[in-house]
């Protein structure tokens, strides 16, 4: 067991997969000579050389499309977006090509590709650098959308994503690259599509993913001090959704709050609420609430930004409301 930052866990995942499979390569802006805009790929150019750790011009549409074409003929590209905000100029490539080629070719061409990079808000990056993209990609059948909170999950999930035969959007966070966690020395994989209970509880289920796991962990502690036992379910994969884990937890608690970054309208939380009312209506003791970003483009000013983001306080209040402890 080693205590390492998440960026090193991600790097270890890529290095191990590149060592075992010569068809894997990493391509993106500043991934090679600069060692990665967030140092995730530090040292990898020296280890693997410029044919496998590839700096690109600022051309997301161009290099995302290149990755897709290479994947179709048997390579396994990892395409890094410096942030997922920039993926939107490659949206057509990911949505209309990567997601659809396997189906529209009648299953002839697989697209084993990973698109990865930091997602969601960091701090004071303002409206164009703070978008959470999970709902934009999870909308489409053909794509998998994976994220993590801990170093352990980051490594195991990224290794699985690289080995997956379908395109995977892998969502990271600038805010947690330096956060340390225990990672085993021996190899391990975490299957895509499996949620994880980060804290067991019996009164209310908090459903979340990504760095909002930490917001919810703080809320769990506060609730505990108030005599409320909250279960924290970390989805880890947005699509395919682990409905079994979700429904089992809600069956146990009868109450649920979904905590997400990104906007409420057509957000992933809306999908989870819909699934719960369709499949768990009789098990619910209260309406499901959502805590999301406020429905405005991200403001720059610190006080306004804090107001926009989910917070432990907002999560605690929502949990108390579904428990009938507050109105």
């Amino acid at each position, binding site marked *: 067991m080693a205590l390492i930052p998440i960026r090193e866990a991600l790097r270890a995942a890529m290095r191990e997969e590149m060592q075992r499979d010569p068809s894997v*390569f990493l391509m993106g802006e500043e991934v090679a000579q600069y060692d990665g805009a967030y140092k995730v790929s530090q040292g990898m150019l020296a280890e693997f050389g410029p*044919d496998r750790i590839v700096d*690109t*011009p600022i*051309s997301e*549409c*161009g*290099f*995302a*499309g*290149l*990755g*897709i*074409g*290479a*994947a*179709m*003929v*048997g*390579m396994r*590209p990892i395409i890094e977006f410096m942030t997922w905000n920039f993926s939107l*100029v490659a949206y*057509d*490539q990911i949505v*209309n*090509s990567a997601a659809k*080629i*396997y*189906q*529209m*070719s*009648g*299953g*002839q*061409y*697989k*697209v*084993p590709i990973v698109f990865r990079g930091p997602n969601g808000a960091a701090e004071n990056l303002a409206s164009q650098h703070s978008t959470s993209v999970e709902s934009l990609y999870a909308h489409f*059948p*053909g794509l*998998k959308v994976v994220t993590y909170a801990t170093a352990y999950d980051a490594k195991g999930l990224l290794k699985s994503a690289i080995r997956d*035969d*379908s395109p995977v959007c892998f969502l990271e966070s600038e805010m947690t690259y330096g956060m340390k966690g225990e990672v085993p020395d021996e190899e391990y994989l975490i299957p895509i599509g499996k949620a994880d209970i980060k804290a067991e509880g019996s009164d209310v289920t908090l459903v979340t993913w990504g760095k909002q796991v930490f917001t919810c962990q703080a809320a769990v502690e506060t609730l505990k001090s108030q005599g409320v036992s909250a279960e924290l379910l970390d989805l880890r994969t947005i699509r*395919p959704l682990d409905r079994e884990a979700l429904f089992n937890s809600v069956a146990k608690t009868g109450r649920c709050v979904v905590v997400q970054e990104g906007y409420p309208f057509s957000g992933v939380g809306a999908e989870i609420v819909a699934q719960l009312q369709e499949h768990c209506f009789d098990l619910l003791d209260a309406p499901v609430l959502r805590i999301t970003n406020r429905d405005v483009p991200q403001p720059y000013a610190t006080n306004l930004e804090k107001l926009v983001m989910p917070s432990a306080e907002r999560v605690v209040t929502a949990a108390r409301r579904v428990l009938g402890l507050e109105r």
Partner: protein
Amino acid sequence: MSELPTPSLPQESGLPPLDAEGLLKLYREMVLIRRVEELAAKAYTMRKILGFCHLYIGQESVAVGAASATPDDYWIAAYREHGHALAKGVSANAVMAELFGKATGTSLGLGGSMHIFDKDAKFMGGYGIVGGHVPLANGVGWAIKQRNEGRVCLCYFGDGAAHQGAFFEALCLAQLWKLPVVFICENNFYAMGTSIDRQSHLTDMSLRANGVGMAREQLRGFDVEHVRERVGAAAKFAREGNGPVMLEIITYRHRGHSMSDPAKYRPKGELEEYKLNSEPLALTKRRLEQDFGVSAERIAAVHQEVEAVAEEAWNFAESSPDPDPATLYDHVYAE
């Protein structure tokens, strides 16, 4: 001002010149595309083919000439791709069945007219977002180069696609990394209903390559032998590690943009002029008869043979089963 660092293509392809039999084979392929598409048009009016259906009639010499120069190379095309698929060796039965939406189609009836794929033929599809597929060709080129395959990737698109950002980004990356890709802009003068002079200040789309220092050439595409020779030269250049090539091949579609387009935007007499002087099948037929001494009977026999293949494709498509509803979710995620 620095000079354009644009390399030149070789004068010759190095391909052996075609003899009568060789040219007759290309003629047969062009006639097959023509007849399969004429039947497709008929099937469309009978509502046996639905959705969008973009015909290649008039442009056959481009795909057939290029296929003759690149039989074992990768191809990726846009949505007017029935002709490319047939030229690349995809079976007429499977193409027609795909148009009919049948389980025996190239893409199991999941793709339709715009999404024909055949991995065995190295035909990497038909794509419906104008220009969106152009960056994919670079990925094929990347893999070819990394694996030292000695192949090239031919990427087809129209004059309309040469205005998309994806196209420009693809040219930049291909030249930067000297990828073995031949970009082929089939300029048929109309992006749907918008004529080339209303779309672009420059009307020679190959000049787009100058901005990235890529080898380029503009050629007329009505003579199948000439297309074979120049695409062969471009493929040789790219295959030998000199980097990508941008070809603009001037051509003309006889039909509308799609089956629903009566093409009323053409100036009077333009189509007739092309049919009279630049009709690829007629040009090749004349060459076969006048320069190779191929008899009218021999040519008639080719037509007869093709007719049987095209009719068989119709019958195969019509008698094939619809996709099984139980398979609806089978090809969303790869196992």
